[in-house]
């Protein structure tokens, strides 16, 4: 008697990812990457620039 395969494994093999999903995922990932870089520019880098500016002024007073 041949052993029945695990039904959970069969369940996993029932469906394939639709065509076109990869393009949607990669497009969203690329947009997110751009948005994260813009956010990074305005938060971390901008913040550091402003801090450096004030620090320089304080240093000048010294």
């Amino acid at each position, binding site marked *: 008697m041949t052993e029945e395969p695990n039904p959970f494994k069969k*369940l996993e*093999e029932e*469906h*394939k990812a639709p065509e076109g999903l990869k393009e949607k995922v*990669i497009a969203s*990932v690329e947009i997110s990457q751009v948005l994260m870089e813009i956010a990074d520019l305005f938060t971390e880098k901008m913040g550091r620039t402003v801090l450096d500016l004030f620090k320089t002024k304080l240093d000048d007073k010294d």
Partner: protein
Amino acid sequence: MPHQEKKHLSDEEIVRQVIARKDTALFGLLYDRYADKVFAKCMSFTHDRQSAEDLAHDVFLKVYLKLGEFRFEAKFSTWLYSVTYHECVEYVRKNKKISKEQEAYGAEQEYKDSADSEAAMLELKLEQLKLLLEKISPEEKALLLMKYQDNLSIEEIMAHTQLGESAVKMRLKRTREKVVTLSRTMVVISIVVVMYWLFIFLQ
């Protein structure tokens, strides 16, 4: 090195390179390896191709955004499935009313030990299993899929569910028993219905 030549790289090596170079095309290689499995898991929670597609899209996007949180302690696939189950359970919670029966994990309830519940569950036919998985809560379903579809160890399930060893084992046992009990109940109901119609027909 062109992406074609990177196909032999391990998942974890690809993750390292994606994080270091912010290489979205390289992320596509991870997509290619796991898209079918993630989509199938989404389908088993949504039962609708469009919703499953949206959900799988969100899973991959979330995975990309959270790649920096991957600690390389477990396999990438384990981490990916854990994100997938989390998203699927959230989806079901948002879109369905969960019955009180499904909500109750019944920590206070005693279950009789049945050593053969695993074997009995694995002997179920695919269509039976699909039906029964709809009768349990999304968390219980995710637990069974982690154990019997992804072959995760108890330790890996513990890491991804934030549960202790005994809690994972107990929940797995209870869920298996619930599935087996439900399947037996369904068989009994089917026999009663058949006998009823037979009785009507013979009269």
